[in-house]
């Protein structure tokens, strides 16, 4: 039946990844974090004030509320070669704007589907809820993501990647 096309696409993907893995020796992933001003961005600041070290690969972009994050920002980040994107903000109950995180979830679900259909590894896109005092957690999330991405290898959209 239709098995053919699918299976082919799958094995080529695996092939491609293994190729990628071989090519890259310890590459440095680039991560974009969209962080809401009131919780996650503050958490990142706390990580700083408490001098909690985490990999340099991350670049944080401040938005007022996670409900403000438009899918285009994330797609754009991938277009420009980001290896991973984290959409982060308050917990559901801490939101400065009452229910931003819920709205963010709605956006994120659709976005996730796009990324999936595009054939990007789902792990490259993350949704995190990090509260003000959770500097440690922020650092931990970044570490995880970096390790995960190092395993995955660079995003196919990186300018560097030849095809």
């Amino acid at each position, binding site marked *: 039946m239709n098995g053919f096309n699918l299976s082919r696409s799958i094995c080529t993907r695996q092939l491609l990844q293994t190729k990628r893995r071989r090519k890259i020796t310890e590459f440095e992933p680039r991560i974009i974090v969209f962080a809401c001003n009131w919780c996650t961005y503050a958490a990142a*600041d706390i990580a*700083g004030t408490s001098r909690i070290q985490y990999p340099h690969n991350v670049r944080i972009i401040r938005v007022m509320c996670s409900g403000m994050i438009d899918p285009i920002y994330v797609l754009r980040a991938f277009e420009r*070669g*980001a290896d991973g994107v984290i959409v982060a903000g308050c917990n559901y109950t801490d939101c400065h704007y009452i229910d931003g995180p819920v709205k963010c979830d709605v956006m994120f679900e659709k976005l996730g589907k796009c990324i999936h259909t595009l054939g990007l590894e789902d792990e490259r896109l993350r949704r995190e809820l990090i509260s003000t005092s959770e500097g440690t957690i922020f650092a931990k999330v970044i570490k995880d993501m970096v390790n995960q991405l190092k395993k995955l290898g660079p995003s196919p959209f990186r300018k560097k990647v030849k095809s």
Partner: protein
Amino acid sequence: MAEVRIGVYVCHCGTNIAGTVDVEEVARYAKKLPSVVISRDYMYMCSEPGQALIKNDIKEFSLNRVVVASCSPRMHELTFRAACQDAGLNPYLYEQANIREQCSWVHSDRKQATEKAKDLVRAAVRRVSHHEPLEVKELPVNPNVLVVGGGIAGIQAALDIANGEKKVYLVEKEPSIGGHMIQLDRTFPTLDCSECILTPKMTEVGQHPFIELLAYSEVEEVSGSVGNFKVKVRKKARYVDESKCIGCGVCEQKCPWKVNSEFNAGLAKRKAIYIPFAQAIPNVATIDKEHCVYFKTGKCRACEKFCQANAIDFKQIDQIIEIEVGSIIVATGYDNFDPSIISQYGYGKYDNVLTGLQFERMTCAGGPTSGEVVLKDGRMPDSIAIVHCVGSRDENYHEYCSRVCCMYGLKYAYLIKELINAEVYEMYIDMRCYGEGFEEFYRRVCELGVNFIRGKVAKITDQAITEDEQGKLTILVEDTLLGEMIRVPVDMVILCTALEARSDAEKIAALFTLNQRADGFFLERHVKLDPVATPTDGVFIAGCCEGPKDIPDSVAQASAAAAKALSLISKGKITAESAIAHVNETLCHGCGRCEETCTFHAAKVINKNGVMVSTINESVCKGCGACAVVCPTGAISIKHFTQEEIKSMVDVLAES
């Protein structure tokens, strides 16, 4: 647009940044970036000389954009914005790159930290060139306040504001203010007579020069927003001229038509023309149109005949009063749960099963039995059962706890012991004596030899199976501490009924754009830190309309609401958030997605000469940006967080 001229300032913050980041290098790098005119590094940008540096450069190099690379904007954004403003630059033409908390402090590798710092600066420079000056809008606040609901909460709020010498409109839908509290006999745990505390406050309201009392009135329409609400109030026809009526009550005596008295919870009768209770404010009669025979048959007019003041006016009609206020306090209170739907408790079926309120009236000296605790047949009861959680903590009715029942239940026990020293049984699940002096009161009641049975009552029946159950009401209850079903024969049963949201709460919510919980009570802005504010700016809630609570709590909440209203007034103006949503009308479809998603009811679709377009109420918009995300056409953008601004950062930062 004029040529963009950016100044970049990189802060050493002592060694905090310079220790890990090569700030000179970053500054040199910044200088090369497009439209950067001047780029410096300095020991402490936030220090006076540091700020002076910026101010001078703005003038000297006629900069129109400023970027400071230093600590977190959460720390010093305001500082530097102010600096820009001092130098005559719109504060929104400033951008801060966080190279301390999010760079130098979290990375140790100098090279990489420096690279990251460069990226962050480049991104900031790119972003700031898209910045637009924003004006800081200020709207005036109308100093008048509307208080809806004339119960203890409404009264307290009104008085607090009026004593601050601000005009208050107090709207009460009943003929008199006083609410539920005026019906109560005594208050726990102190057992003060509730009338004695409330009446002075009521009189004060009645006479206060700053309070305009609109009794027997209902709010019909609310428009506008914080600072400037327009409210339509319907003043219902009393068929009595308030200005003439002297409250002598002759009409009441002469009126031949009897009706159940709401005030006495049906334990007594009132007339078709009536003054609800002796201390009523305003003290004027009201004709109950439904029951007045004149309105039914066109005959009688007894009241008119006997009224010397000839205040009776059968032709009176409802008036619509329009008022303008700056803030609104909603204190619409609660309804009492009607226990007759719990058939197994037999309320309405057995004469001697009473609600708490009815018992209140009974023990009240001024009440229908003038303070006598008596059975229907006039006998004095030997034993009384007090059943807790009637309609509360029960999936079938209300899951929540009504907070006050335990205490008033104990109060009844105390009063019964005091008045007739009958046998008392308290049937409870938990004794919730949480408040100041409550536990002590509980102990006092225990000392009186009241029987406490921990268990939920299953059934109340008059079917006797033993001698001593004859002619009594028998209560079937499982004593969970004995672990067995027991039968308790008593003469009288008092049901501690739940407090529930007003039956018309939904209507009120729609009127003032409040949100409701599943159980109908109104939602506050934040449970913890904004308990009296609501998502609608300028509308506050107080008392039991927010959830069941006792008198001190209601009073405190009322004062809190008053404080919020007062501080709004004394500010005199609202500085509207500048970084808010903006609608491009040529792009807007008027599809209303924004209206649907906006939590603050700021976005609204209007019909602009035939075309549907969305509009943003700038005094209400918080700039959370949700509307821009759902807008399909790109008509809505968020000032200072436009797609260009954010995408420009993404473009820089995503590349590696």
